[in-house]
């Protein structure tokens, strides 16, 4: 069964698929622009020395996202 979690719940090297975003306004558009849309594969590739932000592989690019934003990005484990 598919299990809904947030992007921030992914540990390093875990992959998931984006389900939906709970972020609104310009940040939402920014994320959509760089490819954060439903069913996009996303993989956590590392965390910064303070544990936050984390780096994610999305559509061939590495994007750093903060934990509080990541919590609002709902993903499904694959």
């Amino acid at each position, binding site marked *: 069964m598919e299990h809904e979690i947030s992007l921030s719940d992914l540990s390093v090297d875990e992959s998931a698929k984006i389900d939906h975003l709970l*972020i*609104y306004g*310009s*940040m*939402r*558009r*920014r*994320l*959509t*622009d*760089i*490819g954060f*849309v*439903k069913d*996009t594969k996303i993989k956590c*590739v*590392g*965390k*910064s*020395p*303070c*544990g*936050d*932000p984390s*780096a994610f*592989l999305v*559509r*061939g*690019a*590495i*994007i*750093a*996202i*903060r934990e*509080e*934003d990541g919590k609002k990005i709902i993903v499904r484990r694959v």
Partner: protein
Amino acid sequence: MGLTKNSTGIKASDTNFNIKNVGAKKIIAIAGNPNVGKSTVFNSLTGMRQHTGNWPGKTVTNAQGLCKSKNKSYLMVDIPGTYSLSARSAEEEVARDYICFGNPDAVVVVCDATCLERNLNLVLQITEITSNVIVCINLMDEAERRGVDIKIPELSKRLGVPVIGTVARKKKSLAPLLKAIDEITSAKEIFPLRVRYCPEIEKAISIIEPVIRKKTEGKINSRWLSLKFLEHETGLIEKTEKILSISFSDDATIISSLESAYSFLDEQGISREKLEEEIAETFVRSAEDICDGVVVFDENTYNIRDRKADRILTSKWAGYPVMLLLLVLVFWLTLTGANYPSQLISGLLFRVQDFFTLCLRNIGAPEWVNGVFVLGAYRVLAWVVSVMLPPMAIFFPLFTLLEDLGYLPRVAYNLDKPFRRCNACGKQALTMCMGFGCNAAGIVGCRIIDSPRERLLAVLTNSFVPCNGRFPVLIAVLTMFFVGTAGGITSSLLSSVLLTIVILVGIGATFGITFLLSKTILKGVPSSFTLELPPYRMPQIGKVIVRSIFDRTLFVLGRAVAVAIPAGIIIWIMANVRAGDISLLNYCAQVLDPFANLMGIDGVILIAFILGFPANEIVIPIIIMAYTAQGTILELDSIVQMKDLFINNGWTWITAINVMLFCLMHWPCSTTLLTVKKETGSWKWTALAAVIPTIVGVCACMVFTFIAKLFIV
């Protein structure tokens, strides 16, 4: 960093929307995502040396240059990198406005071959506005190395526009691009792929498009503009009205068709947010479809080396130590490497001084001529050249290497959390790094920060990192008072560690003041943030060295020299014109003495910093001149003699530390302040940018002096 003729100094913030076009050449705009090598393409085509670097957001204004193909010449315009044209940040707006209203004859969209799908998003948004588009897929060599295979002919067929694969570092690979530009500008009709939205949106567009088309008379793409109406992009619409000198808001047909389109979307349950999202998603999905089968790579092996490097450079245990070590290493290489050439140059230049003096005496010139031109202008100039040139010629290439490698975004990534604790943004780390080269360039670079509040924080605190104009002062004082001039590995290592500590004090002040500001006049919570960590790229070492020396070093030196010569003359006059039995310079110094003494320095030093307002490089020469004008004529061809001079004038290690503290934290130079004015558009923020570091510096010196004296006496 960011130091070229166009990216430092007062020109740094020019946003030239009105591109000068002499001789009505065809205009080619170069667009693309951030950090895909647009500037490299631009430089290779124009032979210019626009600053390049491996980090997103480096180009924040339109740069332009000439480019010649076999039989035509073009005006190339390098526009800021953007992920999309939705204009949510300053540079996105510059980019969008240029493509919409700059009327380029063609747009070259530079894409990163290693990350093509995301780049196509922008391509599709641009083909929506204009037909004359060429897609230039750059970094093909990088893609090949990563096992990415791109079927270019098929891609070109799907997009309906010419697609050229290039390796912009190799000029030869740009020949096909030039050929494509020749073809596209000679009236060859192009029919690019235009994305189709969901039926409801398409229907809404068809309701308003005919009236908009009639109104704008083909001066702007009406389908695209209709879409912007549906998205309620009022800013853009007002701009369109202004530029085309028409008015939509008083046209009854437009208003009524807009109303029917809005109510149609309402009926279909498409809110404004939903519409915006549909549109953005359509681009992403279209890009995905286009890439399907055209771009092939193995996900498991792709990027594996970068991930390994990141595991170390951004890891919990090594992330910060590596940053610190790199800082020490850069300083150590700079100090060690610069030591000998510095002595050589200064020995040489001062021998020339004696020669000049001798010549002047032989031709019987009056003594004041020798004073003004040789002891004044020439000596200051010689000091600036011998002390600044060697360290800059080493420091800049080293920094450029780190920049080209792609390390700087990792610094921002590592420092995001600390900056967020101060309610600011990790990207401030990038602007801070730029400040090491030139604070004016660092302040222009603050445009990469989206939130206006966070941008102001970065602008106001930028001068807490010393620019290359202040490094020589720090290095000279450190060497004289704390390391000794004996040379050898230990002493040079010690000075780089000490210099790093001084820099860390500046960085600490940056954090502290950012925090204070965010709790007082710039209250707010950190906004959201996304930061791309670009792939590491092997820097082109040879090119980096040549470019840094000829471009940045000589340019910065030129600026310093331009200030040093007149300053030298003025200072010599001040030091030698006497009112009663005291020189003007010393009179001013005496007035300032009581206050300066509280700060643990003397009036001469304080006046040197005040006179150094146009450029901090001349602070030390002023001090020397003021001291030597008091009677002791010294041959200042070595740092040991300089130390003696300073000690004779009452310097102690406390003075030395205070000079360094004050050098690190006082009013920024005039160029920097003018840039702040340009960037913030307000004298209030400009004044604060000067007042804040000054107060911090004065307080730091007073507190330090007070504590130091407590322990000594």
